[in-house]
């Protein structure tokens, strides 16, 4: 797992860094990582291929190619981000490119779960809020942002003479607590319930010749 050293680990309380904007609804996982890059037995190298076809089409002007967004950590998107294929390669590619948090109006559920399993929070904010955040990012890509996971708040670094602006973010389900506790990787929790797992197996009709029916 040495390749994962710089990837999210442990409790995730704060994400800091610059942001980039991907405008538009229904950005599917085929666009995030086209299927031909799934032909590998590892996730290595996916970071370079994120949005490969969109970037090819835009010839260097795609947000993930613009020099001012190099090293950005926070992706700001719109509605139904990550829809379509369940491929974890999509969040893997985003993560390997450098993304550590996403703010959007909504997500496809499988994508949301895949991100959580990698320690990447998928925050939501209402339409107007996302638009205002996108406007700030676009107007000054060099701005640094801080997301406090516990408080559910994104704050932008204040320029000289400015007061700091902030956006309230939501994190669905148990994701917030899982990230704060460092238990976003569910394997350990699932295995901890050995007796409960056995009890479930014992009561499911189809695992007991339907005798329990």
């Amino acid at each position: 797992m040495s390749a994962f050293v710089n990837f999210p680990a442990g409790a995730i309380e704060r994400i800091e860094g610059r942001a980039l904007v991907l405008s538009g609804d229904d950005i599917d996982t085929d666009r995030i990582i086209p299927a031909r890059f799934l032909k590998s037995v590892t996730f290595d190298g996916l970071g370079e291929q994120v949005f490969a076809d969109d970037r090819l089409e835009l010839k260097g002007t795609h947000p993930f190619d613009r020099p001012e967004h190099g090293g950005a950590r926070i992706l700001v998107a719109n509605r139904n981000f990550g829809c379509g294929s369940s491929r974890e390669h999509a969040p893997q590619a985003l993560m390997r490119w450098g993304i550590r948090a996403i703010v959007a109006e909504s997500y496809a559920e499988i994508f949301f779960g895949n991100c959580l399993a990698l320690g990447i929070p998928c925050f939501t904010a209402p339409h107007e809020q996302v638009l205002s955040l996108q406007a700030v990012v676009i107007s000054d890509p060099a701005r640094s942002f801080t997301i406090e996971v516990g408080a559910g708040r994104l704050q932008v670094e204040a320029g000289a003479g400015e007061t700091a602006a902030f956006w309230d973010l939501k994190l669905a389900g148990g994701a917030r607590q899982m990230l704060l506790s460092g238990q976003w990787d569910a394997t350990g929790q699932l295995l901890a319930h050995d007796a409960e797992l056995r009890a479930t197996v014992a009561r499911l009709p189809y695992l007991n010749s339907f005798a329990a029916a």
Partner: protein
Amino acid sequence: MSAGTLYDKVWDLHTVAELPGGSTQLFIGLHLIHEVTTPQAFDGLRDLGLGVRHPERTVGTVDHIVPTTSQARPFADPLAEAMLAALERNCAEYGITLHGLGSGRQGIVHVIAPELGLTQPGMTVACGDSHTSTHGAFGAIAFGIGTSQVRDVLASQSLALGKLKVRRIWVEGRLPKGVYAKDLVLHIIRILGVKGGVGYAYEFAGPAIDALSMEERMTLCNMAIEGGARCGYVNPDATTFTYLKGRPAAPVGEAWERAMRWWSTLASGADAVFDDEVRFDASALSPTVTWGITPGQGIGVDETVPTPEQIEPNERPIAEEAYRYMDLVPGAPIAGLPVDVCFIGSCTNGRLSDLQAAAVVARGRHVAPGIRAFVVPGSEQVAAAAEAEGLDAVFKAAGFEWREPGCSMCLAMNPDRLEGRQISASSSNRNFKGRQGSVSGRTLLMSPAMVAAAAVTGHVSDVRTLLAS
């Protein structure tokens, strides 16, 4: 909050524990695996020093990367060969049944599990593939997962999940001749949108659904995910039981009787509470064709590409993107649009009844000049059944290629793909930009019979006209 629905009953029965973060640990009754989303999951298990908890509840096959022309090993593509070899190695190491090429049982994972009788009512089914929703046709709660979750299911036969809301989609009437389950689900997604189902499980019910065969129900549930619903299901009934009886993994003897009694208790009750309910009328539907770049951008074959004014403001940006990408003019009729490639197959429409419906159109006709048309059976069993009734000969005589089973041009992880700006008439499930393997390739989703109609005429055509002549 829903109560008394099949979803609630199955969810409760499979709840292992409530987890500290607020999610539920859900037991997975059937875990289906394939070559693309599992190698990293098995490596993850090894890294953690874990084994597979229930190898007997895990079943594998190969579908995404297999070529459909020659399936001789080793494959010409070394990357595809490596993925297949990895799955073979992993299944052997952990004692997991693998239905490999030439076994007689290989095929698209969502085709083979039902035909082997593995998918049964009341189960939870997970697979590293979003179209796992297909299995909901049996009254199972079935959904796609990512690779880290595949690892979790391998290790613990369970997942950490949040419970969905339940929307009942009640469909009155009957599908008219020439209109199929594919048209129904494309229409539902058109109306409810590709985001409409986010946060929901879709229960499909009503007279039109009761009248559907199991294969039609699979087509319907398969595309629940395209409407944003992670799972879709149909309450099990006599149609379900008749389909299952005698299949290799179905219970036999007294266990079959007990199973039927239990399965009969699973349907949403008359007093079930739904979070939402919408109604449709199947008898009013036309064959549906997508014109854009999301499965929600569909219209009746007798309609015209919507103008921006006909589209709700929120949806206009993606419609504008679709006009550009598809090179279609708002207000233009979809019928008559020339196509280049015609693909019949996929987990949505690669079953025997799909091939039969397409063969009715192909019989006695011929693929139009310049059109590349091919049929990819969903599984080795589908291929054998189709060949037994001579469908391969019908297709070949009509100028279609008859291929080996696999996912093929649904997703272009194998040699089957569009080139350049080709337009395909496709019985698959996604018309996303670049989905069929060309950065600028264009996809029109439709039923297999409509694909056959496009193949023999060379353009989008109303299959009802061909069926009448």
